[in-house]
């Protein structure tokens, strides 16, 4: 009896989580003829027309590539700079420590729309509009608070003996950070990387205004460009949504254990 109830609960949980995604997958496999039927057909006719259209007509893989570059570089930069900052904030004696931390935290409380105008003007001056760094830098700035926060709380948990030992063994502060803290904090570094990557992969608003050259546009902007003036190609959108989501689904499938352990170790310690 208990088993049955539990199984039902599990099925419900899975349906709740992936039901909508499965429906979009289903839609993406329909054909233009069956997509607007009412009531909607449950079994798709397994056509790949929409995928072909998304990839060929809308050149979707280029957006995927751009998103990979932008999200990858953002992750690299945010984790690197975040680690550099989190180490002294957690371990070294420095004045203004609390001030810097609260300032960084406050930065993460501001609505994005208030920032985008200033960022645009800045990028214009730097000539970085329509370049990958033009997105990577603001994304890094926007994700740094989270990165610093997670990494700082994790670094704080590392026993000070380890640090002293490294110093006795001949490490300066930097070598201690690089050779001891970063590897020891690998789960937290990893979690941070995942969170940053997902943010950068998904961000739409900055990307819309900063990237107008199709050669550098990212995936959410690519999807926003699918509808024509009066037309919403639902099937192609569904196919694009599937393509946009699958890398993350794979990421989550492969890495769920590490995501969970990283958060367990890091974030909750607050």
């Amino acid at each position: 009896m208990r088993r049955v109830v539990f199984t039902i609960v599990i099925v419900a949980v899975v349906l709740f989580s992936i039901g909508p995604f499965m429906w979009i997958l289903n839609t993406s496999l329909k054909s233009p003829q069956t997509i607007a039927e009412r009531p909607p057909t449950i079994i798709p006719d397994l056509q790949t027309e929409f995928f072909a259209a998304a990839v060929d007509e809308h050149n979707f893989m280029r957006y995927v590539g751009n998103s990979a570059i932008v999200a990858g570089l953002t992750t690299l930069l945010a984790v690197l700079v975040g680690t550099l900052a989190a180490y002294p904030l957690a371990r070294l004696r420095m004045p203004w420590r609390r001030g810097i931390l609260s300032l960084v935290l406050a930065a993460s409380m501001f609505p994005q729309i208030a920032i985008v105008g200033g960022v645009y003007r800045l990028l214009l001056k730097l000539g970085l509009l329509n370049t990958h760094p033009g997105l990577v830098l603001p994304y890094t700035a926007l994700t740094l608070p989270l990165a610093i926060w997670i990494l700082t709380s994790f670094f704080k948990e590392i026993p000070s003996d380890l640090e002293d030992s490294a110093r006795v063994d001949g490490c300066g502060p930097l070598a201690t950070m690089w050779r001891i803290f970063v590897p020891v904090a690998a789960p937290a570094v990893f979690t941070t990387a995942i969170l940053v990557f997902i943010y950068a992969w998904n961000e739409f608003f900055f990307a819309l205004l900063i990237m107008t050259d199709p050669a550098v546009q990212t995936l959410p902007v690519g999807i926003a460009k699918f509808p024509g003036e009066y037309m919403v190609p639902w099937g192609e959108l569904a196919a694009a949504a599937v393509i946009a989501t699958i890398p993350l689904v794979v990421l989550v499938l492969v890495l769920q254990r590490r995501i969970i352990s990283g958060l367990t170790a890091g974030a909750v310690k607050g």
Partner: protein
Amino acid sequence: MRRIVLIAGMLIVGMALFGCGGSDTESGVTSVNLVVWKPNIPAAWDSALAMFHEAHPDIKIVREIGPHSSSQFHDLVAQKLRNQDPSVDAFLMDVIWTPEFAAAGWAMPLDERFPPSEQDKFFDGCIQADVWDGKIYGVPLNIDAGILYYRKDLLDQYGFEPPTTWAAMIDQIDSIQAGENDPNLNGFSGQFRQYEGLICDMLEIVQSNGGRLTEPESPETMEAIAFVRNELIGDAAPEGVLTYSEQESLDLFTSGGAVFHRNWPYAWSVSKESPIAGQVGIARLPSFKDDMSTSTLGGWRFGISRYSKNPDAAWTVVEFFTSPQMQRHFAVNAGRAPARKTLYQDSAVLAANPHFEEMYPVFETATPRPRTPVYPEVSNILQRFLHSALSQDDADLEALAAKAATEMETALGRVQ
């Protein structure tokens, strides 16, 4: 440690190089940055660009492509111009933007390059839409106007002519629905989601009663709104039209779910490849009183940025894309209704778009939306007002209208 610094350094230097890459000047070639939306039929634009480059080897067009949604594209272009981005030379403008872009000083007056003698060749409505404060700021690319689509087979079957009044349309719907007894068959579908399309649809209905959107409290306006709320939505039209833009409303019509449908000319070619192909007729939109049929004017034009460093080259581009030859190209290959009047006698255009002939008088009399630099705000006020009025059964129309009127007054007061 040195390694970290090195990696960080490389990253930053690399990014800087990346950023400064893609320089746009080759010797002797001027580049023109053209901000356009993602076209419905990309091939037509690609070939147009190729033609331009062949004709003007000294100019290179760099296309920046945004979403086709008018509001998203507006935000994009406005953002660039507000920040005096010198990398914008020419851009597409929706018909409703000219006052805003002119008053803000973003668009360049084109009177010297685009003299009245040339303007006369375009629909008057398009030209009027591009004028602000006595100067012209845009060159029309295409024209759009709302029309009524109807199910010819059903109307024929019941012996009806296309209705000229809204009341007649409702009567016809009642008879046809009674006769068909099909729960899937609605009477009417249109665009009543809270977005710019709502303004277009409601302007047509309100003005066909002699009302004005800018005068929400006038009896004619109120009467028209009450008609839509009480007799159209939730009755002749499904309640869902409150969430429809063009695609959803057309889906309903082409899947055989509606007798009448309001849309732009593009829907004609879409319906030809749908389950109801061959059973579709087009007519002027109905009105409340005789000869009051109103169609909202739409369409796109090119503007040139005041911050452009190459206005002459930009003009060459604009002139080329709005030329008779290119408007014919877009009409034939992308189904866009030309803004130039003479093309409506062009055999190639008419062969590809036979319905243009019927549309000509509609285009000629298409009605512009309110013209003000603060149009986006006025539009938002009206959208909120109209959508509340239509979606809430218990809404106090007069109170809503009074509020909208005050809000519009405040908005208009912002322009000095």
